[in-house]
C-alpha cells in the first residue's frame, strides 16, 4: 500500500537518511525501530509530507505522493500522529475529532448559509461517528472537555481517534507509547490491533519493544539513516547486527 524507496535527506550536510526504503502492506502493522539518530522521525516526516526528501520516492497505492502537501495526503487517506502529542488544546475533545472529518461542506463559507441542511446533516453524522470512536477508546465521557485537560496517554489516544475520523487507509504513529504510563500503552496497543483487524494499515515508530512485539507484523530496523534489516520481530531480535546496533553501534 505504502512504499518508500531510496529516500535520502540531509540537513546542513549531515545525512539523516540514506537510501532508506520500506513498504507497508495493507492491513498490517509495520514497525520501524532503531537506536536514536537512526532517522526514524525524519522518515516519518518525509512520508507525512512535512519534509521533502532530497531523493527517493513515496508511493501510496501506486501513486507518487513525494511532492504532495500534507493536507492533500490526508485527503488520500494517509494520516499521522506526533511523537509529542499535538492536541488542539483550546478545542474540545469532540471538536478535535470533528475537525478531522474530511469533506465537510461546512468548511466552505457559503455552504453554511445556503446549504444549512446538508451541513447540519453532515455534522450530525460526524458527531455520531466521533462519539462512536470515543466510546470505543473510552474517552466518550471526556468529549466536552478541552483537549488540554487530558493526560499524556489520553492525548495519544485522542490523536489516534482524530486520525480515525479521516477513515484512513493508513495511519503513521510516531512513538505512540512515549511518555505514556505502561497500563495506557497496553490500552493503546489494543486499540491499534483491533483497528488493524478492521482493515486499517499502520506504520509505527516505537521504542518500547514490548509494544513492537505485541503489535507488529513486520519490523524494519534502521541505524544511522540506513536500512539495517527487516523481518518479523522474532527474526530481527535474533539478528546480531540489530543487537550490535542497539548495544554498541556498528564497527
Amino acid at each position, binding site marked *: 500500500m505504502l512504499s518508500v524507496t531510496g529516500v535520502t535527506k540531509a540537513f546542513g550536510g549531515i545525512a539523516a537518511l540514506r537510501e532508506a526504503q520500506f513498504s507497508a502492506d495493507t492491513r498490517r502493522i509495520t514497525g520501524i525501530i532503531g537506536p536514536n539518530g537512526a532517522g526514524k522521525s525524519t522518515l516519518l516526516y518525509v512520508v*507525512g509530507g*512535512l519534509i521533502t526528501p532530497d531523493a527517493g520516492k513515496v508511493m501510496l497505492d501506486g501513486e507518487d505522493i513525494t511532492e504532495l*502537501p*500534507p*493536507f*492533500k495526503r*490526508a*485527503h488520500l487517506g494517509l*494520516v*499521522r500522529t*506526533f511523537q509529542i502529542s*499535538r*492536541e*488542539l*488544546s*483550546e*478545542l*474540545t475533545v*469532540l*471538536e478535535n475529532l*470533528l*475537525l*478531522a*472529518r*474530511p469533506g*465537510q*461542506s*461546512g*468548511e*466552505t*463559507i457559503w455552504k*453554511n*448559509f445556503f446549504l444549512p441542511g446538508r*451541513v447540519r446533516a*453532515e*455534522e450530525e453524522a460526524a*458527531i455520531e461517528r466521533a*462519539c462512536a470512536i470515543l*466510546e470505543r477508546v*473510552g474517552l*466518550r*465521557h*471526556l*468529549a*466536552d*472537555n*478541552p483537549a*488540554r*485537560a*487530558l*493526560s*499524556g496517554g*489520553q492525548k495519544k489516544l485522542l490523536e489516534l481517534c*482524530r486520525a480515525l475520523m*479521516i477513515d484512513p487507509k493508513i495511519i503513521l504513529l510516531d512513538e505512540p507509547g512515549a511518555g505514556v504510563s505502561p497500563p495506557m500503552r497496553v490500552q493503546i496497543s489494543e486499540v491499534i490491533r483491533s483497528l488493524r483487524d478492521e482493515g486499517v494499515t499502520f506504520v509505527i515508530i516505537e521504542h518500547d519493544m514490548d509494544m513492537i512485539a505485541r503489535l507488529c507484523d513486520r519490523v524494519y530496523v534502521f541505524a544511522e539513516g540506513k536500512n539495517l534489516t527487516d523481518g518479523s520481530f522474532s527474526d530481527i531480535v535474533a539478528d546480531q547486527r540489530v543487537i550490535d546496533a542497539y548495544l554498541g553501534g556498528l564497527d
Partner: protein
Amino acid sequence: MVSYLVTILSLVAIISILGLALNLQWGLCGMVNFGIAGFFALGAYTAALVDLAGAGTLVATVAAAAVCGIACALVALVSLRLSDEYLAILTLGFGEVVRLVVLNEEWLTHGSLGLPGIPRPFWGLIPEEQYEYWFLGMLGGVILLLFLALEKLLRSPFGRAIRAVREDDVVAATLGKDVVKLRVKVFALGGVIIGIAGAFHSFYMTYIDPSQFSAILTAYVFMAVIAGGRASNSGLLLGSVGLMAVIEGTRFLKDIFNIFDATQLSAIRLILIGLGLILLLIFRPQGCFAEYRLKIKKPEKEPRKASVQTETRTT
C-alpha cells in the same frame, strides 16, 4: 441626551464592526492585525470616492468591502511564511502606507483637506431630524447580520478549522486542512468586514480626512476585543460598549474636576486606557466571555467522573 447617546452608540457600532473583524482574524485564527486603522481608511475612502462619484451607497459599500478584502488577502499571502510578530509589523507598516497615500495623493483623496459631502444612504427618504436614529438602526442591523453570520461560521466546521489553524497549523494540515487557503480566506473576510465598517464611517461622518484614521483606533479595537474575550463575539460587543463608556465617560470628568487642564485630563484618559489594557492582559487574559466550544448535550453514559478527574491533571 438621546441624540448624544445615539451618536455614541453609532461610534460604538462602527468600532464593534471593526472588533468583529479583528475577532475573526486574531481571536479565531490567530492572525494579528495592527493595521486596522489603515484598512479602515482604505474602506472609508473607497466608499467615499465611489459614493461621491454617484454610484450610490450600496455600490460604495460593496466596493469598500471588496477593496479591503483584496488588500487583506494580499497582506495575508505575503505574510504566509512569517511568524505572528512579523505579521503584526507588516500590517502596521501597511497601515502607515495607506495613511501616507491618503495624505499625499491629493488628486484622489484631496489629501489633508479630506472629502466632504459624502451622500448618506436613504438620505431624503427619512425625515432629517430622525435620520440619526434610522442610521443607528441600520448600523444595528448590519451588526446583527454580521454577528449572526459570524456566530454561525464560528460554530460551523469552518470555524472549527480556523481555530485549529490558530492552535497548531501543522496538525491542521496533517488532518487535511488547506492552511494557506484558510488563513487567506479568514484575513480577507476580516478585510471585507473592515471595509463595511469604513463605508459606514464615511456615511456617518459625511466628511472624512486622514486624521480620522490614526493608530489609536487600532488600540481601541484591540482593547475592545481583549476586554470582551478573544474569540467571543458577544463579549466583543460588550467590550466595545464598555470601552466607549470609559472613553466618553471621562469627558464628564472635566465638568466636575477643575484641578487638571484639558490636556492633562485627556492624558489621564489615555493613561487609563493603557492601564486597562495592561491589567486585562495580566489579570483577565481570557476576557469576560469564554470562546465558544462545541459540546454534546447527551447525558453521559459512563459514571466514571471521579476517576476522570484524577486522570486529567494537566501537564
